[in-house]
């Protein structure tokens, strides 16, 4: 399959607007290095977190003298430390992503945009491609200058193979299970039986999971009727089907049920879900849809 052009996906104006965005996290993770995200670690940060009884050795600058005046007990003020954050991008590179030319391109641009935001916020960005497991990985990227490497990595991805989300998450947790952070899964989630268990596996390891469900208008509303031979881009024997409007209605119902099931499952576990329809311009998707889904702020 020919690879779409993936050179210079964003213009300067768009990048400037991306820089103003902030990747929201519903949870707080502990990081290693100073960054713009609050950490679970309490220390010399800017954001007040809590009090604790004074213990010998505490920094006397952190004693809350006002409180001492009221209750005549010494309390030390605790602040959250602003640290960096792990952003794991799992980009679906299975063959189904390339069934339509625009779909894979759109997914990679979406991942690139969010990665750009993370890198701008000095997060550690892990880029991985997956199909039947994690097939390609990029060493951790950090800092704004790593954007070029991120784009280069994404542009070299090739869509092939079948989708196996469970195996992918198994591979992921083997490698990064000991870490904390946010996992952004950019996929069409056409592993019907594996999508929810795979997300559960990530939740089990304490990751915050954000699902970017990339779909095309044709997947949402098929426009072909009559006798067709339906071919799975991920392989398998084509099968004949007489496509009727009634069947299409059933398809849409099934597709919606799958999406809804995934969304509800993620939201129930403080995860995030956004459906990225490729017909929506990427800027609108980033600046409106992701913000509306409270993934970006």
């Amino acid at each position, binding site marked *: 399959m020919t690879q779409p052009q993936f050179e210079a996906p964003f213009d300067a104006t768009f990048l400037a607007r991306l820089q103003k965005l902030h990747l929201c996290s519903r949870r707080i993770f502990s990081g290693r290095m100073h960054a713009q995200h609050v950490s679970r670690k309490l220390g010399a940060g800017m954001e007040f977190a809590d009090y604790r009884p004074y213990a010998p050795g505490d920094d006397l600058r952190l004693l809350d003298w006002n409180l001492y005046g009221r209750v005549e007990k010494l309390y030390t003020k605790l602040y959250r430390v602003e640290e960096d954050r792990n952003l794991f991008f799992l980009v679906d590179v299975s063959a189904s992503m390339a069934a339509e030319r625009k779909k894979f391109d759109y997914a990679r641009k979406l991942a690139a945009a969010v990665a750009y935001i993370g890198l701008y916020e000095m997060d550690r960005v892990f880029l991985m491609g997956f199909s039947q497991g994690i097939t390609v990985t990029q060493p951790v990227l950090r800092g704004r200058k790593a954007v070029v490497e991120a784009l280069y990595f994404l542009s070299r991805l090739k869509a092939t193979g079948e989708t196996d989300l469970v195996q992918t998450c198994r591979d992921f947790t083997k490698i990064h299970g000991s870490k904390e952070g946010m996992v952004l899964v950019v996929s069409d989630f056409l592993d019907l039986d594996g999508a929810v268990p795979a997300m559960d596996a990530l939740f089990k390891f304490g990751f915050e999971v954000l699902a970017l469900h990339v779909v095309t208008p044709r997947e949402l509303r098929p426009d072909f009727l009559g006798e067709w031979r*339906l071919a*799975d881009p991920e392989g398998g024997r084509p099968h004949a089907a007489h496509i009727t409007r*009634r069947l299409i209605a059933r398809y849409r119902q099934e597709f919606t049920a799958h999406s809804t099931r995934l969304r509800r499952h993620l939201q129930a576990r403080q995860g995030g879900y956004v459906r990225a329809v490729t017909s929506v311009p990427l800027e609108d998707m980033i600046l409106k849809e992701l913000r509306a889904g409270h993934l970006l702020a």
Partner: protein
Amino acid sequence: MRLFGLTPTEFTLLFSAAALLAVIIYLLAFRKRTAVVAADPIWRKIVGKRRTPYRKLLALLIQLLVLFLLSLALGDPRFLPARAKPPVSMALVVDVSASMSFTDGGGTRMNRALEFAAAVADAMGPRDRMTLMAMDDSCRPLLPYTSDPQEIRDALGDLKPTTVSEEAQPAVDFAASSLTGAGSGDDAVGRIVLVSDRFHAVRVPPRLELVQVAVGESTENLAVTAFDIRPRGGAARGSEVFLEVANYGRRSRKVRLSIHTREALLGEEILEVPGSEVVTRSYFLKPLETDRVMATITAARGGGPADGFVLDDRAFALTPERSTRRVVLVTSGNLYLEKALELNPSVELKVVAPERYRPAVLSRAQAVFFDGVCQPAPIPAVYFNPPGGSGCPFAYDLEVEFPVLLPLRGDHMVTRGITLIDVQVQQACRLLPEPGDVELLSDHGGPLIIARQKDSIRLLGIGFDVSKSDLPLRVAFPILLHNVLDWFLGEADIGGFNESGVGDLMELPAWVDPDEGIVNPVGDRVAPREVGGKLLLRPRQPGYYTAQRGSRRWVAPVNFYLEDESMPEGDRREAPGRLRWRGDQPPALVVAGFDKAEYPEPPLQWPVILLAIAWLLLFDWIFYVFRILF
């Protein structure tokens, strides 16, 4: 139900072609397009094992049904009443022979026959088919089988009576074979209707019906049935006319008989010819400047036609050129032979006794007859009962008594017009033939009469003594001698059939140019046929046929000596399958037992079929929508 717009073959071909097209389109449409769908797992989940081929098959069946009905509608189907009579395929054979030009009543028999044929055509039913054939001495189809009366009427307008006789059985056989391939369906009745002025004894195959219809009412006709001229014998000049007038009617009739040339009347006589009798006359004619003499009968008063059939009222003849044939008879005394030769007015006979015979005797002779003597001769010679010996051209094998004669070979000039099969011969000797000899008469053991041509000299050997047979007592004897002289002198080679009747085969002189042809009595040129090295012509007009090339000139009279055609009535006895028509409506038997009053026009069915097609198309559309939706 029966198709009126298409034959079963045409309907089958039409529907097959349309059905084939529909099936091809169906098969092409059955080749599914391929769509690559990323959401194939969802599709597989909802499609499962659903298969819908029966829906398309049902659609194909509907389309085929529509095509079938459409083809049916094009075929103009009609539902026939259950009691409908079977259709008839009819071969209407119309006699156009000479007798159809008989005038009776207000018109000719031909006109009556055409009226009848037209009435039959008008009475045809929608399922009946008819062809038209003209019958004289051959049978000619005039148009293919049709149900269109106007087409038949148009073809009838071209029919004219000819001047030859009819041959009914071959015509009926031809019509029967035509009906075999008419293809009007299994229930059709094959019927031959023979329209003539008389009934014919003909047979048809058992599966066919034959109806004979006779038109015409006249019962009177007189004809010149014989007319010949010969030069007067001896020293007398002029010629002698012999003629015969026959009355084929029942009543005695008076007619005016005229002997005339083209320019002048030579003589006339009022003849009273009793009914069914023949009157003969002979007249002497003075020498004439022309060689063409005609005999005509007309009404005794007024000079009009003698009867309603004028073709046989005139006969044609040529005055023969007087020629003297010098013949030597070498005999010891045979009056049978001598007198028979003397009877021929053109023979100048010289009788020589055998002991006085010298070759010099033959110096001025054109032919010699040897009777019991055998000498070599430098001129054509006949040897009666040749004794053999050296110098004798004929040798004999052995003598037989009362031989049983085999039929005479009839295609030789010598045996023309005679038969010798019952001649009694007391004693004969079988001649020894040589290569090239023609055996004219023989018994079971060998030839008795041999014709030979050697070094351009013609010889005839007769292996018996005429005085020891009854041959001299027969009419055939002088004819035989006459034929021999004709053959010897080469006069029989040309115009051997100079006096011919219409329809007879006439041999033309060899010098006639076949491409130029000869001129018939009405002035048209007709081309003879070359058969076996001879130029033959079958004349179809009474009168004089002429040919000319350089200084050579040939004239042959052709007479209407067709007795069957001259008979005014013929066989008109009515019987089953035989009907006489006198101008009333066509009998039901003739017109296929078809009565329009009993047989209402079947209603048109194609509008109903088109309505059914519309309903089917609507159903097909609904079914299509159903297929798309569900």
